[in-house]
């Protein structure tokens, strides 16, 4: 995780376009100023950042499915459940499945596991819009390449 850039996904582990699923890995940093405040003497990964990790994973699935033609933006979070604490240094597996591909929006179901145990899950709504500008499209492709998501030739489908 690059918390200071709000880029929470480290790499795409598995992408199945035909099944409309993605699995990503994200390692919680061992140290961050965030943990100095959340909480003093008892560092925990903030739940909102876990939700954001699920949203970003959902987003990467959507951009892969639409071949980087359009950009998803988080619009709604439903049924988010934060089931157990996540601590610095832990390795997270973040999964998302496209539940519905609507006109200008998408619904996903996402979850995070740590050591095989479910730590949180949520149903998310994302608006799917044209990229606001070419620069953003290019930058997103750069980030995608860094995390192993090939914009031109997704792994499946």
């Amino acid at each position: 995780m690059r918390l200071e850039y709000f880029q929470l996904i480290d790499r795409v582990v598995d992408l199945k376009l035909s099944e409309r699923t993605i699995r990503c890995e994200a390692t919680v940093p061992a140290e961050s100023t965030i943990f100095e405040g959340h909480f003093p003497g008892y560092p925990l990964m903030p739940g909102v950042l876990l939700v954001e990790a699920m949203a970003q994973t959902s987003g990467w699935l959507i951009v892969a499915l639409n071949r980087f033609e359009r950009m998803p933006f988080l619009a709604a979070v439903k049924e988010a459940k934060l089931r157990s604490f996540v601590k610095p240094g832990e390795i997270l597996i973040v999964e998302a499945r496209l539940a519905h591909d609507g006109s200008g929006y998408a619904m996903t179901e996402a979850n995070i596991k740590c050591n095989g145990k479910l730590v949180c899950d949520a149903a998310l709504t994302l608006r799917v819009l044209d990229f606001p500008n070419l620069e953003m499209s290019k930058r997103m492709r750069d980030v995608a390449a860094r995390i192993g998501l090939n914009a031109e030739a997704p792994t499946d489908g």
Partner: protein
Amino acid sequence: MSSTFDTIANIIAETCDIPRDTIKPESHAINDLGIDSLDFLDIAFAIDKAFGIKLPLEQWTQEVNDGKATTEQYFVLKNLAARIDELVAAKGA
């Protein structure tokens, strides 16, 4: 009124917590029922699932923005029901 209207009225009532008896065929989803665009996504999702279609929300929005259509054509519920019936018929054709 058609069963299509009843289905979407029930969806709206449940999704947006609006009393079912206040939802009429002549109701405008936005102007009369106060449904905003984000809430309408939940309604569109439920309609897509219920009828096995994909409401072309982006196309409709574009037509309204371009002045080629009015919101009444798509968001007055009896008109929305008619559009849904057309989409269902086109799917089966």
